[in-house]
């Protein structure tokens, strides 16, 4: 009786590691139990591709693809789907964009853009059945070649196809075959390079395990074309399953007479042997491979002679990669013209890539050449998970290079990647997010190649070791700029003078990271910091490293965990004097790097800070006493976070610091731009008062118009911290009706003037926190409907996801892909005309640029339009003092001294960076205070104290088990939108202590055996078993 269902169970390597064979066995049992064994056939196939989601089960004829199938899911699958026809929806893929379930596997975004030629049978047939291979069209091409074509004809087809070697070098395959064919030797050899040594590459493994016959057929066609009688497949020993499947495939082929004497009744005889490698990366290099095949030590020799003239046993030898051979039968069966119609001008056909790293859909993908990097990473790969941003893409493994986000529109081909300083290589693609240290990455690759060097030639043997040495020292904070110069020189020399491809390409990762990320190297060397918070020797803990103010997070959090709230406060005030404000509005860079996220979620550091600050305010804890007055005076223009911070740290050093504020209230953008429901006024004032009590004076309603006057008045240095408080406009028309305001004006109006007229319908343009703040404020002022129009996709909004979620809860509607083009209205605005956008090519920020779509324009009714699309600084004050001001009104300063082009005048915060965060401004203020101190003859840096780790007085092990992150109480939506009362509540005391105890104390120094403490050693051991 005919089968009704074919159930394909993926038995590629990754799925097997996820116990797909156990799933298959359970399927057999369940089918027996439901008496469906006659109707349903189970087929074990090779790798289906999306390895991230294994075990995978593909059910035909519907083509339904189930993911992450557990043994416990099988009973339901059989009873509901196979028996009753009801697909089990919870096991299906979800489309990220449409949030829809996608049943049919060809429609899953991961597969939609792929074109499977090399992997055509992988995941579709049983690799252990030569009959299924034949049923799917196998060995037709071999038959056609040996019975109807001449060897010259086959070579001509290969040449016309444009196929280039897929092992990495990209040499034209047809040309190589021709070289071997032309050799006048009766005996020739055909070899398949299945050594696949690049870390992370497993394309060849998938083909050998999932469709071994395609390689056999390719080799046989090649042997016929070049005149060879014997073939060898050199497989690395680390691929036992590939070896087993290949062996069984060879036996099956021989049994059917597809290998051996007189194939298809012609004079062509050919057979293949398997030879197993012994664990050396260098044996992927062709001359070393051939030496190893002959039983000699795997060591390369200079070329010429090339293997095509003198290879194995000095016979003319054709050596190609697994993927190259896997393309052959398709070219012969369907014709070179068909193959050449795929891909780009110089790079024809498809390429199999192994996608790994910080990307959602890791696994194997096959795409036509010419597919862009952005399509590969985003459309197929699903983008970068966990809210992280893409930093670079590494291609070509240890011989390759990295490509930063500006090049996402690059179509992939041998030429284009080479131009960017990378290579296609064997096909490994590693996606790197913001948490990657490019220096450490380069070090990792050099460590690999240095240890794999065969040792024959000095440049590679000694040169790579020296390069590794320098990279090690740089990552430990012991590097110098001379080291960097030497590193680069060594890299170029090793490339030019190494004997084989290993040495010639090993320096590539270093050269390419230097090309695009030199700043990171310099940060490690000059500033002894690792911006990505990876090189442990350079920071206290990842949280502290990522904090722009370098607050000692582990110390204060540990104090909190002990219940020592006042001590925690003291630690915080050492580097950040605005705990109340930051506890409400800080971006919390620390939480993005918190290692606790690897267990469940990051520690709620900002909420802990808020708890601590509230305690300090309620107990009226004072800041540290100011230093003894030294008689010098410093003027600070602006009382925002940069100015307040600078004033505070100057007072600590004994200076008389005076802040000149133009507005009637202090606080800068914190006071005018952040609504009270996020930052209550009393908290803002308490933080500022505390600073004033440490000896800082603030003069309100005192705008500064001439910096020179300040010097005349006796101030010896000036710090300009005027922020970026001018709202950017959007092109909406020549003259605008009333009711169109910038977000800055709108929010300032509420906080300074108390103005509040909004009307019923408010539309906000923009996607940052300012847009969200304007929208939620408008709601509280009585607007009946508030809409945010953002021109890109919602996922691209710069506003923090928390703010966006809270706004949506409150009823703010967010229309993405909506770009404003004009206003409607006479004297007063009545509506906003918007174009509907579509996602276009990627821009330099790695996001898709919005382009006009063919959907019609819409008009959003509006009684007020708030433009919150960015802010600029006004540079008049600095221009007046003869200091150069760049576009956007920003002033350039030396990153270390914070000095402008005029000695004595310093600047920091948004005035130099453009709109950024409160904590960045606080960090800038402190650096400026140190620089000003140095400028005025002081020591400069604050005395580095020996950092003491804070001990804990509770059982740490108890807190390494899973414990959900604490959530503070939130005001109910319906009540909170009626006023500006604070929305987010505070932890209770016990809650705060418990949450603080989730900290893993990453600041602890490592002990001899590498463990920080007993807790971390047991955690690491546990993680290994998970």
């Amino acid at each position, binding site marked *: 009786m*005919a089968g009704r269902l074919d159930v394909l169970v993926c038995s590629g390597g990754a799925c097997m590691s996820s116990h797909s064979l156990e799933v298959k066995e359970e399927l057999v049992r369940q089918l027996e139990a439901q008496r469906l064994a006659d109707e349903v056939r189970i087929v074990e196939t090779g790798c289906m591709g999306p390895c991230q989601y294994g075990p995978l089960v593909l059910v*035909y004829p519907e083509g339904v693809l189930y993911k992450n199938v557990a043994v416990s899911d099988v009973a339901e699958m059989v009873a509901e789907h196979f028996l009753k026809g009801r697909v089990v929806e919870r096991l299906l893929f979800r489309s990220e964009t449409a949030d829809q379930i996608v049943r049919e596997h060809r429609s899953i975004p991961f597969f939609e853009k792929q074109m499977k030629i090399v992997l055509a049978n992988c995941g579709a047939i049983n690799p252990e059945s030569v009959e299924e291979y034949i049923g799917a069209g196998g060995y037709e091409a071999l038959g056609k070649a040996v019975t109807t074509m001449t060897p010259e004809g086959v070579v001509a087809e290969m040449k016309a196809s444009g196929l280039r070697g897929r092992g990495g070098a990209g040499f034209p395959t047809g040309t190589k075959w021709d070289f071997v064919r032309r050799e006048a030797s009766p005996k020739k050899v055909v070899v398949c390079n299945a050594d696949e040594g690049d870390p992370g590459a497993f394309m060849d493994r998938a083909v050998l395990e999932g469709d071994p016959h395609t390689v056999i057929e390719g080799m046989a066609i090649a042997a016929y074309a070049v005149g060879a009688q014997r073939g060898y497949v050199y497989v690395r020993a680390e691929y036992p399953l590939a070896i087993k499947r290949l062996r069984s495939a060879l036996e099956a082929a021989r049994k059917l007479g597809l290998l051996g004497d007189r194939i298809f009744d012609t004079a062509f005889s050919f057979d293949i042997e398997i030879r197993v490698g012994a664990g050396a990366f260098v044996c992927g290099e062709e001359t070393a491979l051939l030496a190893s095949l002959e039983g000699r030590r795997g060591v390369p020799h200079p070329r010429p002679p090339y293997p095509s003239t003198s290879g194995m046993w000095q016979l003319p030898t054709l050596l190609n990669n697994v993927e190259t051979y896997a393309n052959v039968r398709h070219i012969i069966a369907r014709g070179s013209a068909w193959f050449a119609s795929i891909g780009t001008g110089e790079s024809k056909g498809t390429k199999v890539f192994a996608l790994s790293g910080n990307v959602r859909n890791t696994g194997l993908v096959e795409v036509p050449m010419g597919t862009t990097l952005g399509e590969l990473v985003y459309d197929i790969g699903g983008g970068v998970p966990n809210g992280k941003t893409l930093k670079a893409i590494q291609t070509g493994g240890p011989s390759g290079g990295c490509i930063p986000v500006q090049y996402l529109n690059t179509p992939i081909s041998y030429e284009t990647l080479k131009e960017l300083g990378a290579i296609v290589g064997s096909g490994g693609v590693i996606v790197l997010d913001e948490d990657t240290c490019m220096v450490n990455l380069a070090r990792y690759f050099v460590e690999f190649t240095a240890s794999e060097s065969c040792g024959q030639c000095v440049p590679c043997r000694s040169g790579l070791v020296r390069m590794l040495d320098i990279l090690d020292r740089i990552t430990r904070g012991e590097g110098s700029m001379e080291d960097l110069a030497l590193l680069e020189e060594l890299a170029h020399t090793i490339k030019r003078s190494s004997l084989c491809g290993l040495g010639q390409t090993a320096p590539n990762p270093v050269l390419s990271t230097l090309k695009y990320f030199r700043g990171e190297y310099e940060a490690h060397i000059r500033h002894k910091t690792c911006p990505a918070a990876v090189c442990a020797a350079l920071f206290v803990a990842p949280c502290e490293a990522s904090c722009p103010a370098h607050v000692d997070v582990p110390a204060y959090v540990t104090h909190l965990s002990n219940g020592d709230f006042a001590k925690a406060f003291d630690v915080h005030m050492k580097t950040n004097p605005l705990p109340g404000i930051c506890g409400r509005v800080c971006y919390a860079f620390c939480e993005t790097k918190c290692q606790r996220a690897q267990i469940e979620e990051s520690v709620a550091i900002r909420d802990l800070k808020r708890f601590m600050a509230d305690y300090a305010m309620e107990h009226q804890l004072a800041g540290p006493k100011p230093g003894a007055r030294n008689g010098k005076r410093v003027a600070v223009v602006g009382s925002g976070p940069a100015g307040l911070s600078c004033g505070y740290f100057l007072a600590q050093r004994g200076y008389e610091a005076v802040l000149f504020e133009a507005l009637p209230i202090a606080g800068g953008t914190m006071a005018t731009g952040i609504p009270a429901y996020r930052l209550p006024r009393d908290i803002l004032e308490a933080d500022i008062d505390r600073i004033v009590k440490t000896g800082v004076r603030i003069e309100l309603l005192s705008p500064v118009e001439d910096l020179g006057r300040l010097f005349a008045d006796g101030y010896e240095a000036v710090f300009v911290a005027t922020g970026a408080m001018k709202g950017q406009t959007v092109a909406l028309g020549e003259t605008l009706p009333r009711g169109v305001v910038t977000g800055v004006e709108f929010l300032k109006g509420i906080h300074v003037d108390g103005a509040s007229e909004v009307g019923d319908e408010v539309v906000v343009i923009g996607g940052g926190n300012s847009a969200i703040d304007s929208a939620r404020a408008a709601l509280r002022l009585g607007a009946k409907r508030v809409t945010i129009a953002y021109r890109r996709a919602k996922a691209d909004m710069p506003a923090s996801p928390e703010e966006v979620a809270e706004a949506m809860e409150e009823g703010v509607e967010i229309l993405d892909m909506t770009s404003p083009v004009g206003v409607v209205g006479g004297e007063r605005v009545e509506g906003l005309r918007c174009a509907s956008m579509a996602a276009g090519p990627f821009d330099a920020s790695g996001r898709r640029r919005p382009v006009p779509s063919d959907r019609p324009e819409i008009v959003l009714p509006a009684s007020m339009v708030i433009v919150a699309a960015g802010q600029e600084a006004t540079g008049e004050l600095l221009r007046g003092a003869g200091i150069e001001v760049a576009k956007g009104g920003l002033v350039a300063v030396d990153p270390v001294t914070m000095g402008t082009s005029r000695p004595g005048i310093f600047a920091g915060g948004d005035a130099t960076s453009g709109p950024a965060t409160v904590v960045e401004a606080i960090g800038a203020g402190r650096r400026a205070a140190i620089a000003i101190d140095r400028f005025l003859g002081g020591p400069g840096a604050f005395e580095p104290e020996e950092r003491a780790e804070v001990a804990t007085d509770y059982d740490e092990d108890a807190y390494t088990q899973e414990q959900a992150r604490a959530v503070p109480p939130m005001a109910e939506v319906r009540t909170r939108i009626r006023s500006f009362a604070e929305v987010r509540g505070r932890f209770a005391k016990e809650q705060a202590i418990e949450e603080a105890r989730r900290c893993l104390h990453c600041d602890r120094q490592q002990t001899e055996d590498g463990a920080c403490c007993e807790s971390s050693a047991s955690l690491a051991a546990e993680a290994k078993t998970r």
Partner: protein
Amino acid sequence: MKLEELRKIRERVQNDLRLRGGATRVKIVVGMGTSGIAAGAREVLSAFLDEIEKRKLTDVIVTQSGEKGLASKEPIVEVIERDRPKVVYGGMTAEKARRVVVEHVIHGTVVEGDVLAIVDAEKE
């Protein structure tokens, strides 16, 4: 082996692989809800499968669905063909199933007597 022998193997195996082929001309959907099964849908299903195998039809697939709803007319079978209106048969038996395969699927003539409804492709 000779090339002709390769072709024979291919033809034989292709039938086995047809479920994965995707080049389906006709899809037969047998309603297998509880009432369908009670009315004998399993036998109808087996008959379809058997007839298709006997006649080596490589472009026809048989699937099942849940409750069709019209319990009094069970077992219900839908015959869906590309570019043709969908034909819904009611009161099917194993014998009628075989007749549908021969007359409708192979020769293109709808078996009038058993038809419940003909659904325009667009309307759906």
